Structure formats: C-alpha cells, structure tokens
C-alpha cells in the first residue's frame, strides 16, 4: 500500500516505542496476579466442564472452593494435579465430586513438586495438542476452500435463540458473507461465569456458551461445504470471562474473537486491573489457537466525536498492538479496529474518513484491519443509510481494509432482517467489485486535505501516547482520555476476582502458548514461564 500519506517514519517509530513502554509498564505487574476467570479457563482447558445440580458451572464451583480455602493463589493446575495423584480419579470425576459437595479441596495430600508438575504439564500438553488439531483443521479447510477476497464480508446475527442464529448464519453465508458474528446477549459481559448448554433466550443477542459455539460452527461448516468456501465464525472474548471464552473458542474452532485490552474498563465498567490481567491470558489462548482478534477502537467514536477524537483511535491501536504482541499474537492475528463514524453532514467528511482509514493501513501494514460501519449518525431513513454504507464500502476498498463489518440499512431501527443482510452484501459486493483496484490507481495530492489530516492525526496520537507513557495507561483511563469516559483505578466490577500470586503459583499454559510450542510426544517444554 506504500506511503501515500507522506508520513514521517520517525514519528511512527516514536509512537510505537511509546506504546511499547506503556505496555511494558502494565507488564511489570500483570504476571504478579491471577484471576478467578483465568483459573476457570485453566480448569476448562484441563477438561472441567458441566454444571452442578443448581446449574452452577463446575469450573466456578471448583475455583470458588479453592478461592474460599485460600488456595487459589497457587493456581488451579497444581491442585488438580495433586488431586489426581491423591485420588486416582479423572478430571471429570473430580469435578463431579466437587459439584456434589463430596470433595474437600483442602484435604489433598502433598506430593513432590516434580511429580505433580509432570502431571500438570502432561495434561496441559494434551490440551494444547487438542487446540493445535483444531487449528490444523482450520488450515486444512481453508486450503481446500476457494481463496477469500478481501475485504472479508462480515455480518452479524442476533436472534437470541441459537437455533435461529444457526439458520440465519447459514443463510448469510450462502448469500455471500465470509464472516459471521453471533451477537452476544447484552448482559453477559457482566456475568462472572459462562452459561452452559444451548440457549434460546437472550436479549440483543445470544449467550456465548460452548455448546452454542459448536452449533453455529457446525451450521457454518455445512454452508462452507455447500458453497465451496470457508466461513469464519466470530464471538465475543470480552467481559468478566475473557480467558474462559477464549478457551471455549479455541476448542470449538472459532476464527475471530472481539478481544480488546481496554473495552471492558471503558464500556462495561470492569475493574482495570482485572481487565489487563485477563486480556493477557485470553490473548495467549487466541494466539495459540490461530484466532484473529478484533480490537474495539470503533466504540470510542460512539461516545466521542469521530473527527475531534480520531487520534484516540490511532493511539489505542498502537497500545492494543503492543499488548497483543506481548501475549504472543503475531501481527497477522491482530485485527485492529476503527470506524466510519464522521458526521455525514460534514463538508469533506469522506476525505477525512479516507485519511483515517489509509493511516491505519499504512501504520499497521500486516494487521487484518477491522473496519466498522456508520451507526451513530444513521437514522430510520433507510435509503440514506444505504447510501452512507456505500461510501463506507468505497472507503474500505480504496484503503485496503480487510475485515468489513457490513452496515445495515435498518441499523437505527431493529436487529437485521434476512433481507437487510442480503441488501448489505449486495451493496458491498457491487462496490468492491466495481472499484476493486481503485487503491492502486489513486494517489493523494501532496500536502492536500487527505495527507494533511492523516499527518495531523499521527501528530496528535504521538502527543497522546507520550502523555500516557508519562502518567501510565491506568491514570489515562482515570482521566477520561479514551472515549471521554473516566474510570477509577480501584473501581469497577470484578476486582474481587483478582488474586496476588503466591511464589509457588503454577500455570502450565503460558509457557506452552507463549513459545508457540507445538507439542509432540516426548518433547519437553523448552522455555519457562515468563
């Protein structure tokens, strides 16, 4: 895509360096803690599943018991490994016993470290190997399928009923969508557990459960076989259970996850410490599973003005990138987000959108950029919205975006009807095809409006990042520097689930995930916990 904006590379390098330092500051303490949901994710990866007779998920039952007994600071894996050695039971038998209240978590005998670590590591390797096989399966299916044209057409389904979602998802795939997101029930982000089994009731979306993931995956694989394509599945790795949802997604071969480092803090008022600790482990899982994450910068523009605060999007993209890299995600799996949200009444607004989109493209050349459609300034005038969505699609093809969340003409009115999705796909296909190589043909006038705007945003983002580097990311969130929302250091939900690690804490997964280690029988873990 070259340098069409005449950007100063030293500024880009400076911004990236500042973002790196901001991420490093968080990493001075992130590894001193664990959280209840991280340990539940470990439990899930190690094979704990199901619910007790009250419907409480067994990962919660076990982790809560350890937490109450003051044992969680050592981690779930050591306890499970010792219990297996002590009782000779399987993971599921142990979980079921705990669910029935027949297990005293404190009454487990101790074993030499080397002995239980070997058990824990073996189980973790087996789990990693299962994730690898899902990843290999994806690679194989993608290789067999028709090559995908970018931008990928991304649509959402949101019926609240997983079986209805599966029908709609399949229909959307057959209509030409490449990527389908099942929108989540609005309340789930604040649940400190992941619901179990298939669900048919949800408002604004459907609960993310492992069974629901499986149902839609199956439907999309069928649609893929029918159309000779590979259809990607997306869900939400956000809220109070980020790592657990990552673990579920890794097992059910999701392809993308909405997974932002700050979204929970800003838009769901989740405790910042909890969020930063959770996002790190969840992203390690996503990295290892080959899942492309989508970051949530577009959300800033729903509360802040897209023109005035365009630079906050760029600054956040830098920070999200640096944090993601530290969790082992390669650039190709970091789908940085941004949005087409400038007021359509603005003179030259389209030029400003092009500048911002091209800027993201040039600064993050390997990122599969996720571009979000207009939502804030669209009304019930579906005809106008359809036209604005066309401008959004044109900007995308011109600037080389990769994941295009299609705008719906009924955005301001209701969740999409079957026909709305059809019309949005028709709109995108027409423009993407009709203007396929426009980006290669058009250059921007030197010192023209587009170049000037892009350079301005870069300068503002640099200044913001230097400021954040000075005060720290937490303080910048407290001051409302993103999305005009202020969050206090110790406020927010979920902080009671943050646990300082004991010196004997052990979690076998980071070493496997962060080293990108592909487990083969008989090979030892080569790099130790970071």
């Amino acid at each position, binding site marked *: 895509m070259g340098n069409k904006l005449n950007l100063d590379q030293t500024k880009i390098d400076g911004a990236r360096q500042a973002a790196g330092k901001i991420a490093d500051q968080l990493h001075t303490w992130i590894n001193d803690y664990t959280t209840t949901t991280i340990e539940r994710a470990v439990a899930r990866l190690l094979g704990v599943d199901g619910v007790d007779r009250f419907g409480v998920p067994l990962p919660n039952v076990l982790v809560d018991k350890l937490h109450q007994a003051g044992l969680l600071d050592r981690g779930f894996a050591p306890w499970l490994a010792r219990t297996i050695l002590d009782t000779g039971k399987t993971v599921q038998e142990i979980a079921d016993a705990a669910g029935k209240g027949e297990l005293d978590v404190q009454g487990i005998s101790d074993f030499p470290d080397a002995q239980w670590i070997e058990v824990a590591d073996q189980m973790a390797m087996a789990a990693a190997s299962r994730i690898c096989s899902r990843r290999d399966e994806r690679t194989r299916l993608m290789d067999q399928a028709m090559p995908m044209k970018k931008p990928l057409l991304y649509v959402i389904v949101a019926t609240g009923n997983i079986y209805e979602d599966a029908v709609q998802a399949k*229909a959307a795939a057959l209509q030409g969508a490449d990527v389908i997101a099942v929108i989540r029930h609005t*309340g789930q982000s604040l649940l400190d557990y992941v619901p179990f089994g298939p669900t048919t009731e949800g408002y*604004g979306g459907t609960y993310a459960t492992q069974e629901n993931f499986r149902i839609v995956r199956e439907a999309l694989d069928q649609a893929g076989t029918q159309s000779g394509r590979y259809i990607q599945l997306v869900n939400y790795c956000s809220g109070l259970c980020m790592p657990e949802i990552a673990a579920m997604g890794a097992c059910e071969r999701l392809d993308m996850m909405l997974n932002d480092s700050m979204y929970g803090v800003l838009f769901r008022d989740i405790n910042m410490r909890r969020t930063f600790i959770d996002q790190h482990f969840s992203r390690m899982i996503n990295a290892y599973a080959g899942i492309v994450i989508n970051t949530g910068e577009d959300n800033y523009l729903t509360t802040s003005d897209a023109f005035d605060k365009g630079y906050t999007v760029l600054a956040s993209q830098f920070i999200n990138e640096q944090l993601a890299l530290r969790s082992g995600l390669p650039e190709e799996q970091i789908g940085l987000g941004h949005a087409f949200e400038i007021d359509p009444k603005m003179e030259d607004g389209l030029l400003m959108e092009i500048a911002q989109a091209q800027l993201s493209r040039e600064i993050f050349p390997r990122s599969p950029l996720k571009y979000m459609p207009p939502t804030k300034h669209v009304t019930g005038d579906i005809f106008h919205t359809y036209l604005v969505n066309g401008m959004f699609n044109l900007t995308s093809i011109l600037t080389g975006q990769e994941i295009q969340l299609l705008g719906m003409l009924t955005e301001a009115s209701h969740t999409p009807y079957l*026909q709305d999705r059809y019309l949005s796909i028709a709109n995108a296909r027409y423009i993407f095809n009709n203007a396929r190589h426009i980006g290669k043909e058009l250059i921007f006038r030197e010192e023209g409006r587009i170049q000037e705007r892009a350079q301005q945003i870069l300068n503002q983002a640099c200044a913001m990042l230097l400021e954040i580097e000075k005060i720290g990311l937490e303080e910048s969130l407290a001051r409302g520097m993103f999305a005009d929302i202020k969050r206090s250091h110790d406020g927010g939900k979920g902080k009671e689930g943050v646990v300082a690690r004991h010196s004997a804490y052990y979690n076998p997964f980071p070493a496997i995930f962060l080293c990108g280690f592909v487990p083969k029988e008989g090979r030892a873990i080569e790099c130790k916990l970071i």
Partner: protein
Amino acid sequence: MQIDLTRIKAYGDTMDDGAMQLSFTLPVPPGEEAREAARQMALQMGLDTPSVVEMADLGVGFSFFVVYGKCRHYVDYTAIKIPKRQLHVMTFKEINSAIKEHLGRKVTVVAACTGSDAHTVGIDAIVNMKGYAGEYGLERYPEIDAYNLGSQVPNAELLTKAVACHADAVLVSQVVTQRNIHLENLTELVELAEAEGIRDKMIFICGGPRISHELAIELGFDAGFGSGTLPNHVASFIVNELIRRQKAGPE
C-alpha cells in the same frame, strides 16, 4: 388545491393516487408462484394494481420483493388527537436561573439504563458533563445534581438510589427493544415505584430511540423522549413540571 383532510390518502405523483412502496421477504424460493404470492399479499394489504418490481433470491428458500401499489385506504386526519408534552424549551442559562428563582434549591436527578440493557449512549448523551450535539449534559448544570448510575441497573436499585438522594426526577433509558423487553422493564419500574409509594413524589421520565411521549404516558411515566432529544429538552421538562407542581401545592 383543496385537500380533504377527513380523507387523506398516500401520495405518489397525483392527489389521492394512494401510491405506496414496500419490501418484504416470503419463505418460498423465487419463481412465478412466489411473484404471484407477493402480489396477492399486497392485494390483501389493500393495495390495488400491485406491481412486483423486484424479486431476489435470498438463498435457503427465501425470496425478497419490492412492490408498488395504490392503497385504497384513507385516514381522517381531523379526528386525530395526540397527547403532547407541553414543553417550553429553555436554554442552559434559563434553566439554571429558573431553578434558582422559582425553586430556590438544587434539583436532583437520578438516571440509569435499566435491566440487562448495556447501552449507555442515550443516558450518557443526556446526563454526562459533555452532553450531545453541543448541548451540555445535566451534570454540567450548576443547579442540578445529576447521578448517572450507568448500565444494567436493576429497577429496584434505581429506586433505592432515588429515595436515598431525594430525587426530584428519575430518568430511564432503554435502547435494546428486542421482543419488547423495554416495555417489561419500564412497566416494572412504575409498578415498583407505586408499590413503594413514591410514584407521585418524583417525576418519572423514560427515553430511547423507540420511545415516544405517547408510549411513555401509556406506560405510566410523566414524559417520554425519543431520538434527537437534547439535554436541555429533558431539563426544561423537569423544571417546568417541578414549578407547576409547586404552584399546584401538595397533592
């Protein structure tokens, strides 16, 4: 041209031609039978000489139609009566001075997005300091104490807070309207307030993209605000209503 307001019809390009456009999906694959089904659907809806101008395959056995027709129905415009909010919209300055002058104390407002709804866009636009479209939010008003409780607030919690800080007005935002969840939430709030005996002690206002003043009144609120509402609209209503109630004396 004289228009008979007791019998108005849809207009395309000739008075009383009844022209209408509509689009819909039928759960059958496209074909001549599907086209005829769409035509008959339009006829039954009261559209004469319906013309199916577009039929498209939505896959999985569904077809999409664009249909034009001449609607035979008419409406008596003169017989329509809509309850309207008597709203004298004041500016930021006028509101603050009206509070000082007529009430002589600060006005307390408690706001939240209730139920499972996590969309705070609406309530933030009205309450947060920054406001919306250049109009300051209620938090910025020196004469108003505004508390924004955020999203996913249970109705009971909202009322507890309202009682604790002697709120003059309670603002509720509902954005998610899937399967009319907002109606359940809003009705529950009013019922709870009545059970607590505080319904008449405070002004209850709801807002959201699918909420009209008429709907709000029907649900038992004092006022409802839809899309395009600015913070000063809401503040004007609250202050005018408080002044009116003060004049009317204790109930």
